[in-house]
């Protein structure tokens, strides 16, 4: 009896304190304070790491036996299905926005460019990790080919997959990560062309950040000055719709 009572009291106590925390978190200033921790972490990490500090690269024997896909596993829209049926022959990557020469690139054209291969670890915000061998074109190469305008500060990625509410997925990174040597647009995973589950035909790898930044099913890249014009202004689908941090190096 008394044991049950104590257990109940502890549960009520814990529940009440947590409910208290929940309530404070609805307060606008507290919310802002909690969300601003992202700025501290971004500032601290960027100061602790060299601009081009590399994410760990692994040995072939450390590759995950099965690479768990993250996010959408099949866009399944009529437009995407049509592209998939043609083996992505009609697919183009559009590079636009604050660039001097907008580009429209086919998959064979991308294959002819210099490539980078890297065995890296993919960390989902949920906590799991998978290691895979990625091959693709360094983003810096494409951005240099398009010629960035002075004002461009962010790169926005537009994707073919639609989320539950019908919005197409989108993400963004700043120039430090866009020009990082390991930031590639990958078309192959573990020596195979990218499968639909992993983001076919092309996906972003931005190795110093969590999985939701690695936009899949790429359709377009846009150089912008501010993130306010994209979605609801926080720079990514999950940032806008679930309150995730824009800086996902944490």
């Amino acid at each position: 009896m008394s044991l049950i009572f104590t257990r109940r009291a502890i549960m009520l106590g814990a529940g009440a304190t947590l409910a208290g925390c929940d309530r404070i978190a609805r307060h606008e200033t507290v919310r802002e304070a909690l969300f601003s921790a992202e700025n501290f972490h971004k500032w601290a990490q960027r100061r602790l790491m060299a601009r081009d500090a590399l994410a760990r690269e692994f040995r072939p024997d450390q590759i995950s036996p099965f690479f768990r896909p993250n996010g959408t596993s099949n866009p399944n829209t009529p437009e995407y299905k049509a592209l998939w049926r043609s083996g992505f022959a009609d697919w183009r990557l559009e590079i636009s926005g604050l660039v001097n020469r907008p580009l429209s690139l086919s998959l064979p054209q991308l294959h002819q460019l210099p490539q980078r291969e890297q065995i890296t670890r993919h960390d989902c915000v949920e906590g799991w990790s998978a290691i895979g061998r990625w091959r693709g074109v360094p983003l810096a190469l494409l951005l240099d080919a398009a010629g960035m305008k002075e004002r461009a500060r962010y790169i926005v990625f537009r994707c073919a997959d639609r989320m539950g509410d019908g919005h197409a997925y989108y993400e963004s990174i700043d120039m430090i990560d866009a020009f990082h040597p390991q930031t590639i647009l990958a078309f192959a995973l573990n020596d195979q062309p990218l499968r639909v589950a992993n983001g076919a035909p092309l996906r972003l790898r931005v190795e110093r950040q969590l999985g939701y930044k690695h936009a899949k099913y790429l359709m377009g890249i846009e150089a912008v000055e501010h993130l306010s014009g994209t979605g609801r202004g926080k720079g990514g689908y999950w940032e806008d719709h679930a309150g995730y941090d824009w800086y996902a190096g944490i």
Partner: protein
Amino acid sequence: MVSAASPAPAPAVPSVVVRHSRVTRLWHWANAVLLYILLASGLGIFNAHPRLYWGPYGANFDHAWLELDRFGPWLTLPAHYDLAMSRHWHLAAAPLFAFALLGYMLWSLGSGHIRRDLAFRRGELAPRHVWQDIFDHARLRFPAGAAALRYNVLQKASYIGIIFIVLPLIILTGLTMSPGMNAAWPWLLDLFGGRQSARSIHFIAAFLLVAFFLVHIVMVLLAGPLNELRSIVTGRYRVPEERP
């Protein structure tokens, strides 16, 4: 040893002493709040993928050494599943907690707190002495008089273990889970044997802290909760009288 020939009077022990310094009390209560937030939000984060692995990688198709059900809403922060909010709580509290620990460690070294109160004294680690202490604890015989002013060997061992091993471990394994920190400090990955090992160690260390907390509370209750509580709030501690 007091010689039998000339019975020197035992040094007088004042009835009330300042037991804990202001820094210790501040740090104690900051930790109480921060560790509570960190544990509750950490369980919320864990619920996103309640499986633990050893090695550099680990996902649903890999072998997990531990797989749990989700922790209940009365344990997590927020109560409902909200990974983004759990992360905001966790990542806001973590730097405060880490820098507070760093500050407390430096203060403990500089102020002599370690040398005076926590360092083992000659003979304290002798097996006989340790056994005696364990025996006294098991019989719930707590020191009185002058002896009550010093930490006993089990207390010292647990405080040193928490401050210098478990708390740094939980901070460093937390940093190892950050892909940005992996690029900045790749040695963290080598130190803990990969990100998923670090995640497992982080979880184990959290439950070592929970165990410490439970024992800590039981000891406070047994040793006289009001006197103990007063000493960690105001610093003032009433010295238990020597048993006749």
